[in-house]
């Protein structure tokens, strides 16, 4: 009966999900793929412990139920050295294995570590605002709001800060989120391996418009397609220039900000935003 229920529940869940984007289990980049593998490994290791536990729980509870004439009753039975050694021993071994895996994987998946590649990485500076995302492409001199473009197969090194309450930058199909904080530049390296448009969002509450704070990360076919996009933005008459005044206007809280592209921005904008939050004397020493 209960097995049937579980089967029906699983089937129903699969039917519901099969045409939807289960982003984390559907990785489109190298980091997210490694994370799914890591998750599967950890889960299998846990199941090795959990299955015997549940089996024992069920079997012992059933066998020693009150009124079972076949069960022995020993009210003073209060321990067994070997069983207890096993209880401590088995989890210690499992956790020891998992610890080694944790140590190695934490270093491998360190968001600050640039992804190794023979291609030159693209640098993107990300600014969390109330309630939209600003992306600056310093090597290309363009910028965009609420839409991130990146080439497939090329690592993207993000520098992430906030001119808003603490936020977090996350593209689940591509992997690893990172906090965006005032006066600090967090780092994150991602690589998309498949063309497509992936939803990204803020995961850390940042005020009333928090739920609106999502964007699309568009992975373009290759570096050439990305270069073509940059050229387009620069030529497009609709693209504006993001000077300090335009930025100050953009910074004001707003919801449902449309995708915007800029064919250029005030030099040092990212540093200006960062230094706003640094102590005065510090900023002076660095010449701002």
């Amino acid at each position: 009966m209960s097995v049937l229920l579980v089967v029906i529940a699983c089937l129903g869940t699969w039917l519901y999900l099969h045409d939807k984007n289960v982003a984390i289990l559907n990785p489109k980049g190298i980091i997210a793929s490694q994370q799914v593998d890591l998750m599967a490994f950890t889960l299998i290791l846990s199941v090795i412990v959990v299955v015997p536990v549940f089996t024992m729980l069920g079997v012992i509870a059933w066998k020693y139920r009150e009124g079972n004439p076949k069960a022995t009753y020993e009210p003073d039975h209060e321990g067994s050295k070997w069983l207890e050694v096993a209880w401590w021993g088995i989890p210690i071994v499992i956790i020891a294995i998992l610890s080694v895996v944790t140590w190695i994987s934490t270093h491998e998946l360190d968001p600050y570590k640039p992804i190794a590649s023979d291609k030159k990485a693209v640098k993107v500076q990300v600014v969390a605002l109330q309630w939209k995302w600003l992306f600056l492409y310093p090597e290309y001199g363009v910028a965009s709001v609420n839409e991130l473009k990146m080439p497939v197969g090329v690592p993207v090194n993000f520098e992430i800060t906030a001119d808003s309450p603490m936020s977090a930058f996350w593209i689940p199909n591509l992997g690893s989120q990172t906090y965006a904080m005032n006066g600090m530049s967090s780092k994150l390296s991602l690589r998309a391996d498949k063309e497509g448009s992936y939803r990204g969002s803020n995961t850390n509450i940042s005020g009333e418009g928090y739920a609106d704070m999502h964007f699309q990360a568009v992975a373009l076919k290759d570096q050439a397609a990305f270069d073509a996009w940059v050229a387009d933005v620069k030529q497009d008459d609709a693209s504006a220039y993001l000077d300090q005044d335009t930025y100050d206007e953009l910074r004001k809280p707003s919801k449902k900000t449309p995708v915007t592209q800029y064919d250029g921005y005030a030099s040092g904008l990212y540093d200006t935003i960062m230094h706003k939050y640094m102590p005065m004397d510090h900023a002076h020493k660095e010449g701002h």
Partner: protein
Amino acid sequence: MFGRLGFDALPHDPVTIGGVVGGGLAVLGVVAAMTYFKKWGWLWRNWLTSLDPKKIGIMYIAVAVIMLLRGLADAAMLRAQQAIFATSASSPISPDLFQQVFSAHGTIMIFFVAMGVIFGLINLILPLQIGARDVAFPLLNSISFWLFVAGMVLINVSLALGEFSAAGWLAYPPLSGLEYSPGTGIDYWIWSLQIAGVGSLLSGVNFLVTIFTMRRKGMTLMKMPIFVWSVLGSMLLVAFAFPILTATLAMLSLDRTLGMHFFTSDLGGNPMMYVNLIWAWGHPEVYILILPAFGIFSEIVATYSRKKLFGYKSMVWAILAITVLSFTVWLHHFFTMGAGANVNAFFGIMTMIIAIPTGVKVFNWIFTMYKGKVSFKTPMLWFMGFAVTFTIGGVTGVLMAVPGIDYQMHNSLFLVAHFHNMIIGGVLFGVFAGITYWWPKFAGFRLHEGLGKAAFWCWLFGFWFAFIPLYILGFMGAVRRLDSYDPSLGWQGLFIVAGLGVMLILLGVFFQVVQVAYSIWKRKELAVGSDPWDGRTLEWATSTPVAEYNFAHLDAVQDRDAFWAAKQSKTKASTKFTDIALPKNTGTGAYVGAAAFVIGFAVIWHIWWLALLALLVLVGIVIASTLREDEDTEMIITAAEVAATEKRLRGAGA
């Protein structure tokens, strides 16, 4: 004169007005009934001024249950919003209100439900289990309770006057700073927690001293019931962790009211310091709640298996290991804040290590049933449900303890599902089991079994229906705290299932309410003696209902399961009695609580003269209470009265 308090503080939106009117009418109804039946004097003399930990415990649980209903109402609103209104253009719940509701839900459930019910059970059971007549500092205990009540009232007043925090249950700056949250919401949050938190700290110290100094003769540490051990671990955590909370809230408050810069983004402040500090309290807090639940289950499994607890020493060491380790893992709440790989890996591994002693406990509970005679009464069902639910929560917890996985799952609904898995499946199931188990000791009748079992199954299935969809939504990239999302994402179906799950849980709560009411109605049929479950520990050695002085005799105990051993050896209680001194009732606790409430309220609204005045009054009350002579604070129950009470409660045979 009234600081920033004015008529604009009254609620504007219909949902809040509805809540205020509904809540207000309920309070008015109770007040009117109390007045009509002339029960105020009775309430004041027998309950509110009582220093009897049994009565204080019952009052804690009563407050916590009312707050549970409020917290559940909040949860139902959140689920309704996400299931129905999140994809539509208009909703009765505005984004700001939605954020206040989830902030209130988390704060209330942790501070005023979980903490309240745990402290309630500790008050009821701990003195009895160690064979004592009281706690170490009875007046301090009453003050702790009233500070808890003051915090609870303050958080509910925010509904009617001003607003509540919209910054989540832990209010990270800079969002909780003046720049982004200039209103009174964060201040309500700070002061209700600050006041209740000081109460918790005082309780922690009180119970630690009680355990160390008031155990019955012969009860060495290694003969203490395992629930007492679990409370010892929990209270050690309270004593070390709550000062961190007090200091952190004080600093945030200074930032907000005096323009200081502990946690601001500029002028040398550091919000990351806040995140570290709040979790240096917040993680131990989880264990403050779960350790006593472990203790409750240990008692229940042994009693209903009619057998000694398996691996007592392992259990003790596991509790102590968890106590120490719980201070070494706080950073796992923010792996994504950018600490280096070494730091993240260290905290990840420490987190997994906690799974070892926890796993040992699960094995020991299972093997306590081995070679026992297991009676599947309602508390045992809660245990079975807990064993499955909590273990699965443990697996999702170990997943998130791996930093590489947490980078993906953090702040998603997967995380939300995980911690509800631990807190509902662990803490809440534990206290439901405990309340059912110990109920007859204090009421003289047991709770109805069938209704209890119905409640259990509703809670269990309701829990899984409510939270499996959240796990899946987490995998789909849905983050926590969303008041709206795009329908094209395909999340709505799962949110609807989660909403149905909550309705099932509410049905379970309904059964619990009916269970209590029905059991009171049928109390004659459900009446039981002083030892209905064939108990093992000293609380079952008392009469039912428990005499004010708990134990007429303080004979030395010989064995770990002291009462079980006494029953086996058929020890006869002596009929010689002596005078017993107990503390007299006093209103001091209630006055301190009232003064603390006024201080909090006045600071929130910047009514400085009132805050100062209330502070002076509070200090005055405390000084005055220390000046009282022994004869004013103590009453003597004479040997003859004890003999009469024992005869009345235990019948002629005693």
